[in-house]
């Protein structure tokens, strides 16, 4: 294990005030009695407005569960969740509706948000343009590549005009080159629009590439084990030594957490 870095604030809460997302002592238990699984155990974290925070952790650390709670797809067993404004959630799969065109998928998000019919068309065009997909608006999702589908999903999430964008390993199934481009796209959109991002991944380099702050979660039960501030200037590249160095440090911290399970 490496020496503790000065940027690490072990379990200490982030300064309050402008936090747009607050999780306080949240636990989530699936099932009852003997077979109950503690997915999350008194987890606490805060995300500031406009911040990009990445959650990393080995499998079974309840990363997805946490995002589902924040997106209101599920409710916590105990604890408090406070989200200022609306959330949008992106999944590992694009989860586009196959019966709609690319434009129709984005348009449905606007419609469900209550945007009147007349205003939808120009908004769809500009949202698709922002992810460089304006030319495929009339295509069906199955006609696109995985990376393109994921960008449609991003445009659809942006269409929700949410204050917090929750991302559940959205680039996990893409090839390295496409993922690299999508990192750049996400960084560009985030710099332009300044929404808040909570990004879950098991790829530590990806986390360092994107985040202002990386939180390391423990597995079973999930808790925040460590927090790393990423002070690398943007735009970043995943290949740079600064990214690699910090990623190495975080990986060491993660392996400590994983090894803990080998002994028990």
């Amino acid at each position: 294990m490496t020496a503790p870095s000065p940027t690490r604030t072990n379990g200490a809460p982030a300064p309050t005030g402008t936090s747009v997302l607050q999780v306080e002592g949240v636990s989530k238990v699936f099932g009852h009695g003997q077979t109950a699984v503690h997915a999350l155990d008194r987890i606490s974290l805060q995300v500031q407005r406009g911040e990009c925070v990445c959650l990393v952790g080995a499998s079974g650390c309840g990363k997805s569960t946490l995002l589902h709670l924040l997106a209101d797809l599920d409710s916590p067993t105990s604890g408090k969740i406070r989200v200022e404004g609306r959330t949008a959630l992106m999944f590992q799969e694009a989860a586009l509706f196959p019966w709609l065109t690319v434009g129709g998928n984005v348009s449905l998000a606007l419609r469900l948000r209550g945007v009147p019919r007349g205003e939808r068309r120009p908004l769809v065009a500009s949202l698709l343009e922002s992810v460089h997909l304006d030319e495929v608006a009339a295509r069906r999702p199955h006609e696109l590549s995985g990376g393109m589908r994921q960008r449609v999903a991003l445009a659809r999430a942006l269409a929700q005009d949410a204050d917090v964008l929750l991302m559940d390993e959205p680039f996990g199934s893409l090839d390295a080159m496409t993922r690299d481009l999508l990192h750049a796209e996400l960084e560009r959109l985030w710099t332009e629009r300044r929404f808040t991002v909570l990004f879950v991944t098991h790829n530590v380099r990806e986390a360092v590439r994107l985040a202002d702050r990386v939180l390391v979660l423990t597995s079973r039960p999930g808790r925040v084990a460590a927090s790393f501030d990423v002070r690398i200037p943007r735009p970043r590249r995943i290949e740079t030594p600064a990214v690699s160095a910090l990623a190495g440090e975080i990986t060491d911290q993660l392996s400590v957490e994983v090894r803990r399970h080998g002994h028990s």
Partner: protein
Amino acid sequence: MAIRENLAEEVTGLDALEMPVAPAASRPVRLWRAAWPKLAALAIALALWQGVVWSGWKPEYALAGPAATFQELWHRLMDGTMLTALGMTMRRAFAGFALAALVGVTLGSLVSRSAVLRSAVGSLITGLQTMPSIAWFPLALLLFLPSESAIMFVMVLGAAPAIANGLIAGTDHIPPILLRAGRVLGAKDLSLYRYVILPASLPSFLMGLKQGWAFAWRSLMAGELLVIIANRHSLGEQLNNAYDFANSAWLLATMLVILIIGIAIDSLVFGTLDRAIRRRWGLIDPAA
């Protein structure tokens, strides 16, 4: 650190490389490819039929040959008797199928939305599907006497369970991720049903309708054979008459019409709809 000013170009370039290129065959080639196996099968069937007739296995009144049958068909089409009978039968078919669809959709949407209803009647619906429709006729005749209502009753009992089951299966097999995506977009209850559940279950619902049509058509033919109403000429009634007159050419000509209508509706209406949906959803290999 190099700033990627040409990011947009890089993205669109990669997109162009990743877009699937579908090799399209020309239209006549595709039509011929689809048609020749069917034409060949038809030719073989006609040859076998003619062969059996030539073998002298059965007398002419019991089994007419293709030539005599097509001649009879042509004659009956020209003098209007076949079209009159066909008109009556098709009116019954559409009315019965529409009623069955109404009942099936109502039942299916209720059962798919309520856990209590599902455990109460879910397996009963599947059970009804295995009941041969002809077995309902004695009861139908007691309840409604030989009437249009008796035929409708049996058609609905035959077709509605299949239609309801298609809808139920459709809502059961929606990928959970699409439901989650819908909820994330803010759809709930009625809007989730309208924008996600209903369109997502469309392919399975269509299969239910297709199966329902087949059941309705079969029930209708059984009904028309059993329920003869005076002065109402129908295909089933023609079968009865042809049998009574021991006119096998008439009988076979009528059977051909029944077969052709069944196939035509199945492939032209339901087959076309099914292919259109599967193409839109990307469930058809474009190269095939």
